[in-house]
């Protein structure tokens, strides 16, 4: 069912007479996107901490334990403050403009991509029809930033890292895009809200992967391609600390380096969100269905209540539940990515390219054609 934009409705309620509609939309967007970026930054910092804990436990150690008390929860904040105070250097011979611009472009494009991402049914700021297209396009911009950083650094390690990034990302962009075609075929829309809407029913379990069996291999392909797109191990060749020092970020320090770091975790979260929306039900889960039944009044066409509230008239709680469900799914995806990183060794560049072009691309095409046939047989 349709849900209005919560912030927009709130503002519309308190705005004085005579304020034009676009102004309310603008204020909604500014407030909303600020909130969104805040949420994403917090989640990225949380993911950094999570990664250290996960890797620690996989390697039979504890990870950060002291800062902030309980299991070192404030470690990332402390790191962030420290990085902010560091000296930021620009190496001799570097292209200063590009060198400074690159990390900003990398982080900015991921934040920009987030603008089209709904975090809850009523918590969205750009309900555009091209949703997933925009997200993929903006997140592909990070590659430009990485190549810029490698080119501008005047260091051979950076350049090698950047070239690897370029080759790897263009190779995996294809299976990523093709494997997304399968759920798009089922959903029939690029809009993420509508895609999530299309999965409601079956008591919150009408996920696309359960609607069409060929979406399961598509989801696996998407996961592998997303690993490569976000430069995560075993595809972390652009960084490859054992051969390229730190790849494209070798020459970066301080806050600019932390931008790359933030971008990596934000991109992981973003890719997991896209995967969650297009394969694993979006906001939908049994909890969401329960919350919808309990807290939301369904309105008829004439505005009268069709059904009295199950228990309470508290739509906000429903939105919080739905948002939490989506965030939980996405964070589980992030956790899977970390698990893979500490389990699988890094592959060589020729293996990366072979896998991308020779296996994943044809496989993805076959899966999409099979998924299409299944859809056609069902209809």
């Amino acid at each position, binding site marked *: 069912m349709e849900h209005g934009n919560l912030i927009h409705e709130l503002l519309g309620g308190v705005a004085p007479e005579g304020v034009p509609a676009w102004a309310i939309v603008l204020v909604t967007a500014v407030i909303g996107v600020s909130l969104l970026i805040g949420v994403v930054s917090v989640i990225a910092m949380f993911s950094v901490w999570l990664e250290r804990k996960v890797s620690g436990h996989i390697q039979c150690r504890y990870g950060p334990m002291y800062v902030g008390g309980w299991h070192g929860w404030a470690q990332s904040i402390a790191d962030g403050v420290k990085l902010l105070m560091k000296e930021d250097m620009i190496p*001799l011979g570097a292209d200063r403009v590009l060198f400074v611009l690159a990390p*900003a472009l990398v982080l900015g494009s991921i934040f*920009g991509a987030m603008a*089209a991402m709904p975090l809850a049914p009523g918590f969205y700021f750009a309900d555009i029809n091209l949703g997933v297209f925009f997200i993929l396009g903006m997140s592909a911009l990070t590659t430009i930033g990485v190549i810029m950083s490698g080119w501008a650094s005047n260091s051979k390690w950076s350049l090698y890292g950047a070239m690897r990034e370029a080759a790897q990302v263009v190779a995996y962009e294809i299976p990523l895009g093709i494997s997304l075609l399968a759920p798009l075929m089922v959903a029939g829309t690029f809009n993420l809200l509508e895609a999530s809407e299309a999965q409601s029913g079956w008591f919150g379990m009408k996920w696309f992967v359960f609607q069409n069996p060929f979406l399961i291999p598509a989801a696996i392909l998407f996961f592998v391609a997303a690993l490569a797109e976000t430069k995560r191990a075993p595809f972390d060749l652009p960084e490859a600390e054992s051969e390229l020092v730190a790849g494209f970020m070798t020459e970066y320090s301080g806050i600019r380096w932390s931008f790359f770091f933030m971008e990596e975790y934000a991109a992981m979260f973003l890719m997991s969100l896209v995967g969650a929306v297009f394969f694993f039900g979006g906001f939908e889960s049994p909890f969401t269905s329960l919350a919808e039944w309990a807290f939301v009044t369904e309105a008829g066409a004439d505005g009268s209540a069709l059904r009295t509230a199950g228990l309470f008239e508290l739509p906000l709680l429903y939105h919080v539940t739905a948002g939490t469900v989506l965030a939980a799914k996405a964070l589980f995806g992030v956790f899977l990515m970390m698990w893979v990183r500490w389990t699988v060794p890094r592959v060589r560049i020729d293996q990366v390219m072979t896998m991308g072009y020779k296996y994943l691309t044809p496989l993805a095409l076959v899966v999409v054609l099979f998924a299409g046939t299944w859809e056609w047989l069902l*209809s």
Partner: protein
Amino acid sequence: MNEYIGIVAGILLAGGITASMLILSSVLGKKNPTPEKLEPFECGKEPFSLPMGKMAVSFYLTAILFILFDVEVIFLYPWAIVYRELGMLGLVEVCVFVGILMIGFVYAWANGALEWAGQCSTGQRSTGQPRRD
């Protein structure tokens, strides 16, 4: 067009936040550049080569192949959206389309365009040249 206000606001805010963090850092951080510190990294030694050499041609080949497939994927996206309305005709037409592209793909594969230069697994040394089969 109102939906796109959010996109514009998002991009502007993202740029603003990153820029303000950069400025904040340059205000808070110290400034003590020394010639040694500013040198490109080279394991503590003097840098002995600068990154002006040629890259292996495979990187460019990959980029060219990407154009082929990316155009293909772009064409497939609108198709996927209206797939249910097109029905069987849509499926058949896309099979033909993908089939023709796959012939190009098989051609590239069979003629070694997908082999990474100097694959370690075959014991060849990297020469920076594509293999000529």
